[in-house]
C-alpha cells in the first residue's frame, strides 16, 4: 500500500466535507466517517464552563456548536427584583475574571437615568480601577494563549504578578477578585498612602514580564508555527458576526470604546490602541501583548495626572428608597475583550425594569467561533477559542 497516498489530502479544505444544497455540510454519523466529540464543559482547553459539540472527520472539525448554560443563574432576572444598589453584588459576577467593567456600566446607567454627575477625582479613580482590572486580566490572558499550545511557563509568571496587582486592589477596595469599588455617584475611597509607590514597583515587574513574554512566546518557533495563519477572521466578518476589541483590531478595524466614545478620563490620556491586519491567532495575541503595555502606560499617566484629594462621591438620594424616573439607556466601556455594554430600562420604581448586559463573548463564542472552527484541526480548538477571549458567564448572565 502506498502510505503517502493514503494520507494525501486535498489542500483546498473548503471542498470538504461535501456541502448540501442548503449550504450546510452533509454529515451522516452512521457512515462511520464522522465522530462527535464534546470539548467541555470540564476541559483544560475551554475558557470557563461552556462546551463545544464538535463533529470531526479524522482530526478535522467539520461542524461546531457552542453550548452554554452551565453557569446560568438568571442575573438579569434577579436584578429586576432588587433595588438599584442591591444589583451590584449580582452584576459584578457576570464576569469573574474582570468584574470592574460590570460595576462601571451599572453605575453609569443608574447615574445617567438618575441625573447624577460624578466628581472629577472619582472619575480618575474609576479610570484607574478599570485599567488595573484590564492589567490583571491581560497578565493571565496574554500568556494564556501560549498555554493553549502547551507553553504553560508564561502563565505561571503572569499569575505571580497578577497576584501583586490583586494586592493593590485589596488595599484600594478591600477585595481581591470582586471589588464593588465603583458605586452610584462615585467610588468608595481615595488611594491609600504609598499606593502609587507600591504600584510603580509592580509595574516595573510587568515591564520585565512583557520583554520575557516576547522572547518566550512571540520568538518561539513552535508558538509561531501553531498560531500564524490560524483562525483568520476576514475583514468583512467584523460587522456581520459582531467582532469587538482586540479581535477586531487584529483585523485592522479600530474598535476601542476608549477612543471612539471616550468615557471617564480617557480623552485626557495619551494613547493609541495597537492595530494590525493579519487577523490570525498570532495577531490577536500580539494585539493583547501591546494592550498590556498600553495599560501599564495608562496607569502611569493616570497616577501622574490624578488629584490626590477631592470629592469622591456625588450626593445621591437614599439608596434604599431611590426611585429612578422612567427611561432607558445604553452605557458601554472597553473591557479587555472588547465593547462591554448595558441596556437598562426603568419604570419609575425603585428597581430596574430590565437590565441586559452585552459582552463581546456573546457573539465571539457563538456565531463567530462556530464558523471559525470549521476545517480547523481539533488540536487548535483551544487556541482559537482563547484568542477570542470568550467568557461564558457574560453569555448566559
Amino acid at each position, binding site marked *: 500500500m502506498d502510505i503517502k497516498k493514503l494520507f494525501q489530502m486535498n489542500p483546498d479544505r473548503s471542498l470538504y466535507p461535501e456541502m448540501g444544497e442548503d449550504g450546510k455540510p452533509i454529515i451522516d454519523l452512521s457512515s462511520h466517517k464522522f465522530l462527535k466529540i464534546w470539548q467541555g464543559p470540564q476541559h483544560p482547553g475551554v475558557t470557563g464552563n461552556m462546551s463545544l459539540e464538535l463533529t470531526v472527520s479524522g482530526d478535522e472539525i467539520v461542524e461546531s456548536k457552542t453550548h452554554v*448554560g452551565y453557569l446560568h443563574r*438568571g442575573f438579569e*432576572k434577579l436584578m429586576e427584583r432588587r433595588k438599584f444598589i442591591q444589583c451590584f453584588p449580582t452584576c459584578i459576577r457576570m464576569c469573574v475574571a474582570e468584574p470592574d467593567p460590570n460595576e462601571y456600566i451599572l453605575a453609569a446607567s443608574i447615574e445617567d437615568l438618575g441625573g447624577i454627575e460624578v466628581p472629577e477625582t472619582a472619575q480618575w479613580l474609576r479610570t484607574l480601577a478599570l485599567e488595573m482590572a484590564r492589567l490583571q486580566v491581560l497578565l493571565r490572558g496574554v500568556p494564556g494563549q501560549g498555554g493553549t499550545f502547551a507553553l504553560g511557563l508564561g502563565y505561571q509568571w503572569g499569575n505571580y504578578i497578577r497576584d501583586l496587582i490583586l494586592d493593590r486592589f485589596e488595599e484600594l477596595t478591600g477585595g481581591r477578585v470582586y471589588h464593588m469599588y465603583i458605586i452610584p455617584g462615585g467610588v468608595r475611597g481615595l488611594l491609600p498612602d504609598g499606593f502609587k509607590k507600591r504600584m510603580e514597583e509592580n509595574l516595573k515587574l510587568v515591564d520585565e514580564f512583557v520583554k520575557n513574554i516576547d522572547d518566550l512566546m512571540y520568538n518561539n518557533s513552535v508558538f509561531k508555527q501553531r498560531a500564524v495563519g490560524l483562525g483568520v477572521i476576514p475583514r468583512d466578518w467584523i*460587522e*456581520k*458576526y*459582531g467582532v469587538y476589541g482586540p479581535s477586531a483590531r487584529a483585523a485592522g478595524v479600530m474598535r476601542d470604546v476608549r477612543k471612539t466614545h471616550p468615557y471617564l478620563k480617557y480623552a485626557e490620556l495619551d494613547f493609541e490602541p495597537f492595530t494590525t491586519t493579519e487577523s490570525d491567532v498570532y495577531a490577536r495575541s500580539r494585539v493583547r501583548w501591546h494592550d498590556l503595555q498600553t495599560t501599564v502606560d495608562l496607569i502611569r499617566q493616570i497616577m501622574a495626572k490624578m488629584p490626590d484629594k477631592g470629592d469622591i462621591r456625588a450626593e445621591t438620594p437614599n439608596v434604599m428608597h431611590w426611585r429612578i424616573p422612567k427611561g*432607558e439607556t*445604553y452605557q458601554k466601556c472597553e473591557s479587555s475583550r472588547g465593547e462591554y455594554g448595558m441596556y437598562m430600562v426603568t419604570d419609575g420604581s425603585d428597581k430596574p425594569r430590565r437590565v441586559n448586559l452585552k459582552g463581546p463573548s456573546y457573539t465571539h463564542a*457563538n456565531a463567530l467561533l462556530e464558523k471559525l472552527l470549521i476545517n480547523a484541526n481539533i488540536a487548535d480548538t483551544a487556541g482559537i477559542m482563547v484568542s477570542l477571549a470568550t467568557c461564558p458567564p457574560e453569555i448566559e448572565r
Partner: protein
Amino acid sequence: MIDLIKDIESRFETSDYIQKLDHLAFITVEKEQAIALVTYLRDYRKYTDLTLLTAVDWLEDGVFQLTYLLNNPTDLTEIGVRVMIDRENATMESAHHLWENMMTYQRELREMFGIDFPGSPRLEEPFILEGWDDLPPYRRDFKTKEYAEKTYFPRPGRQSNDPATYMKSKMYPND
C-alpha cells in the same frame, strides 16, 4: 442625529423619539415596518453593526418591547429601534438574514421570553436552558421565588427573614 430622525419619520410610521445622549437615540416603529427600518438603517444609513437585540416585558400593558440597538461605525452614533408586539401572540419577523449573529439573539428571546421568530435557524434548539417546560423564565409573570421553593429543597440550618422586620429587630430591639 436630527437629520436621520427626520429621514426615518418621512419614510416610516414612527413615534416616541428620544435623543438620550449626543450619540444615542431611541425611536419606536410599527411592528410591520420594523425589519424594513432596520434593513434601511443597515443598507442606506451605515448602521452596519448590531449591538444587541433584547426584550422588555410590559406585563401591565400586555406587550413586549423589542429593542434593536444598531451602531454606525462611521459617525459613531447609535440608534435603538423599539417595537411593541402583542404579549399573547408573541411573534416577530426574523432578521437572521441581516446579521450572522442575529440568530443567537432570537434563539435566546424565544427561550427566555417565548417570542417566536418563524424561519430563524436553530430556533428550536435549547440555548441556555435544557429540558425547560415551564413558563419562559424572563417573563414578568414567572415567579422566581415560587419556582425555587418548588424545585429545590431547603438546606437544613438556613432560614430566611423579611429584611425590613429583621433589620428593625436588630437595630431597634426595644421598640
